[in-house]
């Protein structure tokens, strides 16, 4: 029996492990990937102040600190079930059962699929898969590709692929359908890009965001939008073009595209096939909540946080005794927020264990999450604060005991 088991060696899990191991708890982390770091491993981007965020280095630093603090890290181990026990929790893993008094689920987020005709052809992958292959495994995903789905994540990863010498022919929208949601509507995509535009490196988008505060201006914006789109780092971003179908016999050979009206409907006669040997589909992220769900944790549906999130308070405690959550499972935000949340969860677990030396440390860590959130350079949704408040209220209501 250990004091704390942490599922997920991403920035949240590693930071939590360091924080609670330093308070004297025996801590083990398990992660199903062969290497610690989670989504940090693929991250490489330039911050608005010009410095680079190198996730690989951050992951190595956290891994070193955790091991130095006495944390046991087991990679290549999947957790497939968690159940409460008389003295805590039992996790079933591919390496056997682990008994623990406290459990932290820090499993991150998963990508949302966007089905496009032809998406089952070899050579089609999610944008996150392309990121991992390029930055972690150093495998060339192709020579010339098309990215379907325009959002903050896909724009950031397009740049990473380009830095690795891979040509991105263009970024376009998925076709409008029941299963593509708002991602196929030029207006909605433009609006969501503009809301995070203060972070964008492109002066055009930044300028556009000043101009288009009202919805009629946005509509005008999309219809006046240059038909060739605009470019960021020379990658054409075409909000008035959609992929109708990915074509190829045994693998991706190209994409059938069409110009679309501001409502996403294809303009007749504008179809053409562009050559490509790989396609990335980018549908956004949602919290990976499966283990919290089978643990029996109550949930909140909060679109600004990415969907269903386990209810938790600002100490990252769920209503279930001994169960904690941190990182993207609580809402999709940047790696720095995940780290700050991890520290809170770690200290909070130490507190639950009666081992927290100074409770002011926990209070400070909670404040720090808010500060990091305000300064975040990558923001996945403009209404994160409201979403967080909703979850906080539900947590208060659920702990009437």
């Amino acid at each position: 029996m250990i004091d704390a088991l942490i599922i997920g060696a991403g920035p949240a899990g590693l930071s939590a492990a360091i924080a609670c191991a330093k308070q004297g708890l025996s801590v083990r982390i398990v992660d199903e990937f062969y290497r610690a770091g989670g989504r940090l491993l693929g991250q490489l981007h330039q911050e608005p102040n010009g410095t680079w965020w190198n996730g690989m280095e951050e992951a190595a630093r956290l891994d070193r600190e955790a091991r130095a603090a006495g944390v046991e890290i087991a990679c290549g181990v999947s957790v497939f079930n968690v159940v409460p026990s008389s003295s805590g929790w039992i996790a079933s893993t591919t390496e056997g059962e682990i008994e623990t008094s406290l459990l932290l689920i820090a499993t991150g987020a998963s990508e949302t699929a966007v089905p496009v005709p032809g998406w089952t052809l070899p050579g089609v992958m999610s944008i996150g898969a392309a990121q991992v292959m390029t930055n972690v495994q150093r495998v060339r995903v192709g020579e010339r590709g098309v990215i379907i789905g325009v959002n903050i994540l896909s724009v950031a990863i397009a740049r990473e692929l380009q830095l690795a010498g891979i040509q991105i022919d263009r970024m376009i929208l998925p076709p409008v359908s029941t299963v593509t949601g708002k991602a196929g509507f030029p207006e909605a995509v433009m609006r969501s890009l503009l809301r995070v535009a203060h972070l964008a490196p492109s002066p055009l988008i930044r300028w556009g965001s000043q101009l288009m505060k009202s919805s009629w201006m946005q509509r005008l914006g999309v219809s006046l939008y240059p038909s060739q789109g605009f470019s960021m780092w020379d990658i054409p971003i075409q909000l008035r073009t959609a992929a109708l179908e990915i074509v190829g016999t045994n693998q991706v050979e190209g994409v059938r595209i069409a110009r679309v009206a501001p409502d996403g409907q294809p303009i007749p006669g504008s179809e053409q096939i562009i050559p490509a040997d790989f396609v990335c589909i980018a549908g956004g992220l949602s919290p990976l909540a499966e283990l919290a769900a089978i643990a029996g944790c109550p949930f909140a549906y909060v679109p600004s946080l990415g969907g269903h999130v386990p209810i938790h308070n600002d100490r990252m405690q769920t209503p279930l005794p001994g169960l904690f959550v941190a990182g993207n499972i609580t809402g999709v935000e940047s790696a720095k927020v995940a780290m700050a949340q991890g520290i809170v969860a770690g200290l909070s677990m130490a507190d639950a264990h009666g081992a927290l030396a100074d409770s002011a440390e926990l209070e400070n860590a909670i404040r720090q999450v808010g500060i990091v959130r305000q300064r975040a350079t990558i923001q996945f949704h403009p209404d994160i604060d409201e979403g967080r408040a909703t979850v906080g209220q539900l947590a208060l209501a659920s702990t009437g005991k």
Partner: protein
Amino acid sequence: MMDAHQLIVCRCEEVSLAELLETAEAYQCSARELKLRTRAGMGCCGGRTCRMLVDQVIEQATGHSPSHTIPLGYQPPVRPISFQTLGGRNR
């Protein structure tokens, strides 16, 4: 134009968008019932890819927006595992 019949939504069980839409329209059912009727989400990946899409089809067909409860429940094991592991003999 996009042909809904050709578009596979659940890749493990090869369920098309048309099949999902027609079933959802006909039965005006829950996401769970749609899963049981079509097998979408019941393949070896455990619905990791199409779970959200099944929810979206139901949202569109019934007009019900998602509630705080997760529409399609999760059951262990949440990863594909061998019988050996399931039986507790994993080495």
